């Protein structure tokens, strides 16, 4: 790998190192319950929202009520988005006169965007009106991310509180996450992206007569405002079909670096915010370091793999010094594409700047595995920290079993009340992912959707359910996901991957909030050390390995060895 590739990696690490501590401290204040920077500006706006919505911000919720609020909001969001997508043909801001989506496509897209997945069984520029993109998809980009961050805030309160019955107020957490974190950051990022060349207008097609005399339809649309929050909220749904490979979404190498940063910054910052919120900053740094280590290793590996030549093309005379460029853009190159692929799959973002279907066998396989880790390195906005803390609880439980002591975390005994939801959390995704993948592999209608055959065909199926069940949203896009089989099964996978994880997390939060910590003793396992961080990484890798290695062997590994 060239020196410039390492330079890109280090530039990204430096940007993250400069900004994550600042945003982490700020986010800690946003969810901490005391005063926070910008109160004078934000508090009046928040109070107005609470008044309109009939919310008493001082009234906290039991975890079951918190969960009910989350589900109610998810349901209403889904219905509103579904109605908008079905009716877009008769609504304004539709310069191309696009018809409403059919029921399958509207169901799939509505589930996808309300679960923060942004799996796309449609092509944005050919299916979505500007109104749908703005008032449907952009809105869900904000609130689905803020809902995940809200559950994280409730989880952390559960860990930090003693003898408490409540874990916070969902509506307050939702509002503050949007108003104080996502909206200001998105606004600034959107303007930066316009400066780089990302389009932001309400035009239909501008028809150009090309230099050689052909007609070329140049698309318009409010893309920058959506691309900004698509990255910051770990959403990932492209305004255009080619997502951030499209020059109108990601025009320069600089916009590419900043978008890669935007994919990672919120989840990494929330790990540090956790340290502020639980009153022990070492815990936040330990979680951050654990996430960072996995992300950095996978990133460098995928960068190296994509910068290498494809052996299949050895006899064709192609000079592959620049790497394997099928499905990659010239201005970005192979290394920046690999770095993005690792970052978008380690978060539950799912935007792409290269076509993942054309990644090298191991590069694509590692991207898949990165999702199968359960989106914890650093994972989605809020939900990534949830996932990592669940892995931490599992690790202290396993360590407790090994040493014969009652496991505890931050002084609280971890008992069956917590471990049962932990196991439910860990089982939901593999059951859905492997179940649907197996059913697809023996289903003629599903197999007809494949763009590639052999091991790579299986990879297309595996990737689809790894992506949807983990609420990632990226795709091996050769797979035709718009068929009834895939719209329904990926829709179910997205719902399971969202709510069968968030509800157990809230149950753990409710149980932990009631407990009172006991003083640390000589045999207490410290959870802020490199040793413990290494143990967590090992647990993440072993759980994913035991679950998914057989499937990965038949897909990416078989393809690698056959090449």
């Amino acid at each position: 790998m060239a020196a410039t590739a390492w330079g890109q990696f280090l530039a990204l690490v430096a940007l993250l190192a400069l900004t994550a501590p600042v945003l982490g401290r700020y986010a800690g204040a946003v969810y901490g319950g005391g005063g926070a920077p910008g109160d004078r500006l934000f508090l009046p706006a928040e109070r107005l929202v609470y008044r309109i919505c009939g919310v008493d911000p001082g009234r906290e919720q039991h975890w079951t009520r918190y969960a009910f609020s989350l589900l109610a909001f998810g349901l209403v969001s889904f219905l509103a988005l579904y109605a908008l997508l079905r009716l877009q043909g008769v609504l304004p801001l539709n310069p191309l006169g696009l018809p409403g989506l059919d029921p399958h496509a509207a169901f799939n897209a509505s589930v996808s965007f309300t679960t923060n997945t942004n799996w796309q069984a449609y092509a944005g520029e050919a299916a979505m009106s500007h109104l749908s993109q703005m008032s449907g998809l952009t809105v869900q980009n904000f609130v689905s991310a803020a809902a995940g961050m809200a559950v994280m805030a409730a989880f952390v309160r559960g860990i930090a509180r003693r003898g408490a019955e409540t874990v916070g107020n969902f509506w307050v957490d939702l509002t503050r996450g949007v108003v104080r974190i996502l909206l200001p950051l998105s606004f600034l990022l959107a303007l930066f992206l316009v400066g780089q060349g990302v389009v932001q207008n309400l035009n239909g097609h501008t028809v150009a007569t090309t230099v050689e005399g052909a007609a070329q339809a140049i698309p318009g649309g409010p893309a920058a405002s959506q691309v900004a929050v698509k990255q910051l909220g770990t959403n990932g749904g492209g305004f255009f079909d080619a997502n951030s490979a499209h020059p109108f979404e990601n025009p320069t190498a600089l916009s590419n670096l900043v978008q890669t940063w935007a994919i990672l910054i919120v989840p990494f910052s929330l790990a540090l915010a956790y340290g502020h919120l639980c009153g022990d900053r070492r815990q936040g740094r330990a979680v951050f370091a654990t996430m960072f280590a996995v992300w950095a290793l996978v990133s460098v590996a995928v960068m190296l793999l994509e910068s290498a030549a494809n052996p299949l093309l050895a006899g064709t005379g192609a000079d592959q010094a620049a790497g394997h460029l099928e499905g990659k853009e010239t201005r970005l190159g192979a290394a920046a594409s690999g770095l993005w692929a690792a970052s978008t799959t380690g978060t539950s973002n799912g935007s792409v700047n290269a076509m993942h279907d054309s990644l090298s066998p191991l590069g694509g396989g590692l991207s898949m595995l990165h999702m199968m880790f359960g989106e914890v390195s650093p994972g989605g906005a809020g939900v990534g920290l949830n996932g990592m803390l669940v892995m931490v609880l599992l690790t202290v439980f396993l360590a407790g079993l090994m040493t014969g002591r009652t496991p505890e975390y931050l002084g609280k005994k971890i008992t069956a009340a917590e471990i049962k939801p932990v196991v439910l959390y860990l089982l939901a995704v593999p059951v859905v992912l492997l179940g649907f993948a197996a059913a697809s592999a023996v289903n003629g209608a599903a197999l007809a959707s494949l763009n590639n055959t052999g091991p790579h065909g299986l990879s297309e199926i595996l990737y689809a359910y790894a992506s949807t069940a983990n609420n990632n949203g990226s795709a091996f896009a050769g797979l035709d996901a718009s068929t009834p089989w895939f719209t329904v099964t990926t829709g179910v996978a997205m719902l399971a991957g969202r709510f069968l994880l968030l509800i157990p997390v809230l149950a753990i939060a409710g149980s932990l909030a009631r407990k009172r910590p006991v003083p640390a003793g000589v045999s207490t396992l410290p959870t802020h050390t490199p040793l413990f961080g290494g143990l967590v990484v090992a647990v993440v890798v072993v759980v994913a390995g035991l679950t998914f290695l057989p499937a990965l062997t038949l897909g990416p590994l078989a393809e690698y060895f056959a090449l």
Partner: protein
Amino acid sequence: MLRQLFAALAMTAVATVVLGLAYPLAVTGIAQVLAPERADGSLVERDGEVVGSALLAQGFTGPEYFHPRPSAVDHDPRDSGGSNLGPSAPALAADVAARAAAYRGANGLAPDAPVPVDAVTASASGLDPHISPENARLQADRVARARGLDAAAVRALVGEHTVPRALGVLGEPGVNVLGLNLALDRAAD
């Protein structure tokens, strides 16, 4: 419970107005004031007519123009995307071999001359506006011949239109094909 459902409805309505209308329209307004050319798609005009976008490839085929990278969508921005051929797909090997042979033939290269990988692989968007500097250098002689120009002059023009790595390390250098071809036409006038 009813109170929660009402809150969900009201919150969705507020979010739609603030995040779904006010925010994108505010960004649009500011963008249209501060950087209207970029916000509208970096359109390129010649003699008052829009001939394309500086950010989108066009399917140049004539020998007197530099050619863009192959596109899985025929350089049509109404439907962006790549080939999605896997790294082991036989069709990929066949496509690349055919493109390499055509590239060598068009540019007068030896039958075993290596061809830059960007010239024979389809881009991710199908609209990649750039080619690698080496790809442009290899096409320069053909373009010069077709135009009756000095090859050195064409190569100099390629150099002028080569965009280096941003900040020295980001991305890869590239040559904007539309910009270069328009400059060639201007040089001919």
